[in-house]
């Protein structure tokens, strides 16, 4: 049945499982809604999603290719392969793909991502990193405290821009070499950067994983952020202590260079104004406003701050790059957001700037999530999902404590396996939802369990996307800094134990499942307002 969820309605009638009665006959064929039979039993309906998972492991773990476009092909081929196992007409299978792609969960995530992308890119263009660099420089922190302060600042940046990968790149490029000069241990410092990325990926309302965790568990994003703060801060406090202790016992690199010289070019105190942009989004979202409204306010504040303080020109945020032969080129060229060029083989017209690039950054992921949801719907219609669920509830999730441990374990397993953690989160989302609903665990708690494992496990292992991004960026450092030798490049396997916040976040949730810390049922509080999302 198509999941037309109007959560606040009060209905006393009862739609039957077929459910398509509410849909005109002429449309029902295009939205699926029927069970699909597979050769080999209902388990074969998992072929598309299993094929995708194997493809993702092959591509990202074995070949180290973190390409979302490659994953799109993986899920497409999986959907085609699955079709060959369908009994009878393939029409229902094809229709179910459309049914899955039109699920509200997919569309909601895509809309929120695109808004978040515009915001994040505008913050980065507005020298938010420069503000944090300035802060780090003036504090004068050296030696044992460097990893701890790096973790805090990386966490701040990641919470503002919502992208752990972006945070990792920015910090490895600038803070990592400076931190080594200040006497930090390279492995510990890299672990602190990854930990900060995890913190923001987990907590930021504009983080792609936060958005997916909320919408797959039928929860508003602001409420999810507020409810997960307690887990994140507990893990973060212990992680800070861990970095201070480890920083004082692990020897740093002995380098004769000036850290301030490395950082000064990028330092800009005015960039800290984006703490305000970030705060506007968090406060507005947690106050119960629609996430699109919350991020839109953040974008407005960021754009105004960039222009008013000269952090980024209008053209950096939006530029129409047009050939000078265009009809309006001469008239519009004086405007700061219009540039013209002489037509030639190497020049092409384009619309660029942080707002465009930020939105476009999520286009491929948006297509990917549509097809993953479609494959999940095939699994639901074919019965494999129910089979896995039944087995889990009979064998693993036999009581609420075991159910939460099962949710933690399953989310951790798939995220430890698939490099691109957002894709893994989308794939496991329906399972987490069903197991949680079985025990009336509310949407916030389910979203928090899901996203903690997603964020943490995406930045720990050598094949994790976050680690790969950092490692790749680090390999360019010997060319940029004379003191930076190849020996200072951190081997990804070495950093695994030092991603303290990641390990602690997983530990917090294992303990929370066992002790009931933070547990909320639907009778305690329901997700604030799902229709709004």
């Amino acid at each position: 049945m198509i999941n037309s969820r109007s959560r606040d309605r009060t209905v006393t009638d009862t739609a039957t499982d077929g459910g398509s009665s509410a849909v005109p006959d002429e449309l029902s064929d295009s939205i699926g809604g029927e069970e699909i039979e597979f050769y080999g039993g209902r388990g074969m309906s998992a072929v598309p999603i299993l094929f995708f998972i194997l493809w993702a492991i092959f591509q990202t773990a074995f070949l180290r290719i973190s390409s979302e476009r490659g994953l799109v092909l993986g899920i497409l081929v999986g959907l085609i392969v699955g079709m060959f196992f369908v009994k009878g007409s393939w029409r229902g299978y094809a229709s179910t793909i459309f049914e899955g792609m039109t699920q509200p969960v997919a569309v909601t995530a895509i809309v929120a991502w695109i808004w978040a992308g515009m915001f994040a890119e505008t913050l980065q263009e507005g020298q938010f990193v420069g503000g944090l660099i300035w802060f780090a420089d003036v504090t004068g922190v050296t030696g044992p405290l460097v990893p701890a302060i790096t973790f805090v600042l990386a966490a701040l940046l990641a919470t503002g821009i919502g992208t752990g990968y972006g945070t990792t790149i920015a910090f490895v490029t600038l803070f990592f070499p400076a931190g080594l000069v200040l006497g930090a241990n390279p492995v510990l410092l890299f672990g602190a950067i990854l930990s900060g990325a995890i913190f923001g990926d987990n907590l930021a309302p504009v983080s792609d994983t936060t958005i997916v965790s909320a919408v797959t568990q039928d929860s508003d994003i602001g409420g999810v952020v507020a409810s997960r703060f307690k887990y994140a801060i507990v893990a973060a406090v212990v992680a800070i202590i861990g970095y201070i202790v480890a920083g004082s016992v692990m020897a740093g690199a002995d380098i004769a260079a000036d850290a301030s010289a490395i950082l000064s070019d990028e330092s800009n105190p005015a960039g800290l104004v984006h703490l305000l942009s970030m705060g506007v989004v968090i406060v507005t979202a947690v106050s119960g406003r629609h996430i699109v409204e919350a991020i839109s306010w953040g974008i407005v504040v960021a754009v105004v701050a960039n222009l008013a303080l000269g952090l980024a020109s209008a053209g950096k945020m939006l530029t129409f790059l047009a050939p000078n032969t265009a009809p309006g080129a001469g008239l519009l060229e004086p405007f700061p957001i219009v540039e013209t060029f002489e037509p030639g083989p190497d020049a092409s017209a384009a619309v660029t700037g942080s707002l465009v690039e930020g939105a476009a950054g999520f286009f491929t992921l948006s297509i990917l999530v549509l097809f993953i949801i479609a494959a999940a719907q095939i699994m639901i219609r074919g019965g494999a999902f129910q089979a896995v669920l039944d087995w889990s509830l009979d064998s693993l999730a036999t009581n609420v404590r075991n159910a939460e441990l099962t949710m933690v374990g399953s989310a951790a397993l798939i995220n430890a396996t698939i490099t691109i953690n957002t894709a893994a989160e989308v794939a496991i989302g329906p399972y987490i939802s069903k197991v949680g609903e079985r025990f009336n665990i509310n949407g916030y708690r389910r979203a928090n369990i899901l996203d903690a494992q997603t964020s943490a496990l995406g930045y720990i292992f050598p094949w994790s996307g976050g680690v790969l991004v950092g490692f790749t960026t680090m390999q360019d450092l010997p060319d940029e800094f004379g003191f930076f030798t190849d020996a200072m490049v951190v081997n990804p396997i070495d950093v695994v134990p030092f991603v303290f916040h990641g390990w602690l976040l997983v530990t917090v949730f294992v303990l929370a499942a066992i002790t009931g810390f933070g547990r909320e049922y639907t009778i305690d509080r329901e997700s604030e307002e799902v229709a709004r999302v």
Partner: protein
Amino acid sequence: MSLFDAFRTGWTFRTSTPSLTVGDEVGVFIHRHQEHAGDGDGAATATADATETDAEDGSSSQGVGVASIGDTQLYVDGTGPEHVDKRVRVRITEFDESTATGRGEFVAVVGESSYAG
């Protein structure tokens, strides 16, 4: 809920067998329909009102819906198989703390499972 309350909520250790208060209305997911409600589990026969409602819906007149709130079991009169995986509002009529088992009356359907199968 104020901004402060939003961050403050949930800093507790919640039991796996939450209590229910007679007279309260709660929203829960029904995960199972149990036929022949009088057999086992302490569930009683469906009420006359529920039977009439069922007859109008053309649904089963026997049995109760079962919801697990943590490890607390709530038997919901007036529901049929069609309410499985639906979020329903239930008025609590009985609750036994010692066995963490309660009964309630179906009030209305208020939502669906996140992923309808």
